[in-house]
């Protein structure tokens, strides 16, 4: 069964958009076209999230970490790329969403750790950049700062609580 897709890719949050046309010929063989550049790709999984990719004889080993539509690609030489891959519909949704962004800010943990100190209370007024709490991860303190001027509308955490990446910590309105 041949599968075809058209995607828009952006690299490391940059502006430039790459148009990708992709055809899956057999299980591991793909034909690609990136902004007019043609590739034949043999794509194989060689261990957990480790991929062996052969493109016109060039052999690459990549680690790929998938988070929704963002793919963090780490090459053997240490180069890393964060690639967002969207189809037409997702791309349109994203463009609409980013136009309407503002107001209520939900602060999420950027790394796992535990809450060592809480420096504000619910309802308190804060300035942008003011520390709200201190998250400790691996013996290092990380200040979690207010992203904007506003009121601390909500605090989702307690003292000494362990949090995971992406957990909601607070809301500043």
């Amino acid at each position, binding site marked *: 069964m041949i*599968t075809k*897709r058209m*995607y828009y*890719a952006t*690299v490391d949050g940059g502006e430039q958009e*790459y148009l*990708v046309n*992709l055809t*899956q010929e057999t299980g591991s063989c*793909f034909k*690609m076209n*990136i902004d007019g*550049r043609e*590739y034949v*790709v043999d*794509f194989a*999984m060689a*261990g*957990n*999230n*480790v*991929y062996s*990719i052969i*493109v016109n004889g*060039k052999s*690459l080993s*990549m*680690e*790929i*970490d*998938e988070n929704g*539509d963002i*793919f963090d*690609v*780490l*090459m*053997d*030489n*240490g*180069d*890393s*790329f964060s*690639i967002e*891959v969207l189809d037409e519909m997702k791309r349109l949704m994203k463009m609409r969403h980013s136009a309407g962004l503002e107001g209520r800010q939900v602060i999420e943990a*950027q*790394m*796992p*750790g*535990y809450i060592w100190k809480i420096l504000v209370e619910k309802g308190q007024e804060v300035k942008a950049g003011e520390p709200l709490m201190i998250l*400790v*991860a*691996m*013996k*290092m303190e*990380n200040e979690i700062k207010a992203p904007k001027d506003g009121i601390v509308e909500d605090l989702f955490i307690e003292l000494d609580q*362990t949090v995971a990446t992406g957990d909601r910590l607070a809301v500043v309105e």
Partner: protein
Amino acid sequence: MADIKKVLVANRGEIAIRVFRTCRKMGIGTVAIYTHADRLAPHVRYADEAYCVTDDASDTSYLKEDKILALAKELGAAIHPGYGFYAENAGFVKKCEDMGITFIGPKAEHIILMGSKTGAREAMVKAGVPIVPGTDIIKDIEKAKAEAKKVGYPIMLKAVHGGGGKGMRLVKDESEFESSYRMASSEAQNAFGNGDMYIEKFIIEPHHVEVQVLGDSHGNALHLFERECSIQRRHQKVIEEAPSPFINDDTRAKMYEVAVKAVKAIGYESAGTLEFIVGADQNFYFLEMNTRLQVEHPVTELITGVDIVRQMIFVAEGKPLSYKQDEIKKDGHAIECRVYAEDPSNNFAPSPGLITVYDSPEGPNVRVDSGAYAGFEVPLYYDPMIAKVCCVSRTRDGAIRSMKRILSEYRIMGIKTSIPFHQRVLENETFLAGNYDTAFIDTKFDMEDMQRKLNEDVDMPILAAAIKQLLSEKAAAARSVTRRDVGESTWKKFGRLTSFGSKLG
């Protein structure tokens, strides 16, 4: 002193395993301690015996002096402290002595002596070790000027009660002396309520170079050459090499000589390190002595073939060192990269978590000391260093090439690591030239270096990401149609085999 039959390592992770490896080779029994949080750390199952030192999961501290000492006493085990925790803790060593427990490390008196900045300086001056030239408190400006001339410009004016850069002034020549003195002193007066100042020689392009030493209870003292440790980030060493690419043979010889003299002068036993600051002019001055096994000792082991832990055990047993100085040969060049669980592309944010893939580099001339494995969850509570990867080659250039090869094979997934950072440093021209100083990371290597790609072509990562996206979409579609396994591929079988979830309930 009796032979050691069992060693308890009052530490965790890679350094515990490193000590256990030597013990296992020597036929000495091994005892691990662990916290609830570290139950699955690899040092626990590496040891012959393992004891939990915490009462419940909320306590993550290894600092359980009474429990550790009682355990060692009961088991008849000697204690090796590793680095950190109880290393360089004279009180702990004294308690070992009181309880008749063999401590594999220096005597309490030397830990105390070297733990005191003034005591250490005095002892070193007495032993003929150069220290950074300077003065006592300045009482008289003209006298001070004369002394500054003797020390040699540029000099640093420092507040006696200072800290954090306040009350400090760099003085390039005598014409600036008086005004600098007045400003710095009044700044110090305002900041610390005391305007006393002293003079210290300013070291241009300072290098951190250290000499590994060994002493025994029979008065023998050895040096094992030097290590260059100038590549530091936030005062943490990140790359070390042996020998130093910077100092010349004349400096080397002098440094070894004073180091051995110092060890003999104070009667130091076990492994230790004399840290020196070396200026661009090759003059070197004593900074401090570390009375412990250093993190970076493997580079010295790689160029000498000496197992430092083994020698520490012999010394603790009261035996003489196995080598005479002329039997210690330096062969080749070694480099160590410290691998931290942190994200170099996100300002080195800590990255604890579950390691899903762990492929250790293989092949020739590599040594990895790690405390990690696939399936291990790097805990939040401890040092983020998860591995040290070292290599050795005939030349420095060969070692750098080897390290690149080795890092390209070292695959750790599930968490971020500092491996890409090391790969960038290994491409940096100042590093390659070997004349970096302690300001390297701040002045010669920046985040732009970190973000710079070796290969700018984005098509390869884009095509990989696009294929992954397609496959994920297809997999999601397949899942929504049926939850039954359709066919049975090898990968599925592997997936099932590695699916722990259902097995441990």
